[in-house]
């Protein structure tokens, strides 16, 4: 539910007093690997450079085997490997692109501290209607004071 352990403002009530509306497009099912060009990767578009002293011999070998093109350039007495634009970057493996596939729409009891009784709406408009009615009910209650 909360893999990042992120910083949050604590809710006033316990998790059991909340209800959650969510949508999910998991990486495994809704994304595919993408090339640098598809995600406008900055390294791919502009090229990049790295200090030669930071690249150990075995990594240099991997770079050469991987087919990356670079030149060695001296900037102020320090040697850099300069990679030209238009080739895949070192993080090409992490690029993802969203597939044109509908989200899964969820309704559950609880909040980020714990969810239970997860229901799945098959269509966006059902989920939207459920959500809208719920919000409307809360607004009405606040209006009454």
């Amino acid at each position: 539910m909360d893999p990042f352990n992120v910083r949050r403002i604590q809710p006033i009530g316990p998790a059991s007093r909340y209800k959650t509306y969510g949508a999910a497009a998991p990486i495994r099912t809704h994304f595919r690997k993408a090339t640098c060009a598809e995600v406008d990767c900055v390294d791919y578009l502009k090229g990049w450079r790295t200090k030669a002293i930071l690249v150990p011999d075995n990594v240099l070998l991997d770079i050469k085997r991987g087919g990356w093109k670079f030149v060695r350039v001296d900037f102020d007495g320090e040697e850099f490997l300069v990679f030209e634009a238009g080739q895949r970057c070192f993080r090409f493996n992490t690029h993802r692109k969203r597939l044109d596939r509908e989200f899964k729409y969820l309704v559950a009891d609880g909040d980020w501290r714990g969810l239970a009784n997860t229901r799945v709406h098959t269509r966006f408009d059902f989920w939207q209607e459920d959500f809208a009615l719920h919000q409307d009910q809360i607004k009405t209650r606040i209006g009454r004071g």
Partner: protein
Amino acid sequence: MAKTTGMGWTTLSVDDSSGTPQAILNDITNFQFSTPRAVQDVTGLNKSAIERLELLADFSITLNGVVNVASNAQHDVFKTVPSTSVNRTVTIVGNGKTLPNETLFTDYQWNRPQDGSLTWSAPGVLADGTVPTWA
């Protein structure tokens, strides 16, 4: 009800630090919007009306997605979260209806699990106490 397509949710935009909405739906893997339950469950016998009202206005939002550092994509929006205290409008649009939320984001984190993907998470709370409603 008007005719609708099967495409459902069409837009999710979040303001960048200058207040310009940026559409980042394609970078989202996961979205949660936690609201109070029906009020009957909320009010205990010994609770005051004030507590009930505070709870009613208590909402939280969590956005998760894949890192996209392209111009005006999700990273451009959230990279200012640690440095700028600004309320951002999160807007969900689908079927021609809109749900705007004034949100204060409290964190922005990257995560790199073993499968090689690079993901991010941004939690927030409702900033202005106005109940978000579909319109």
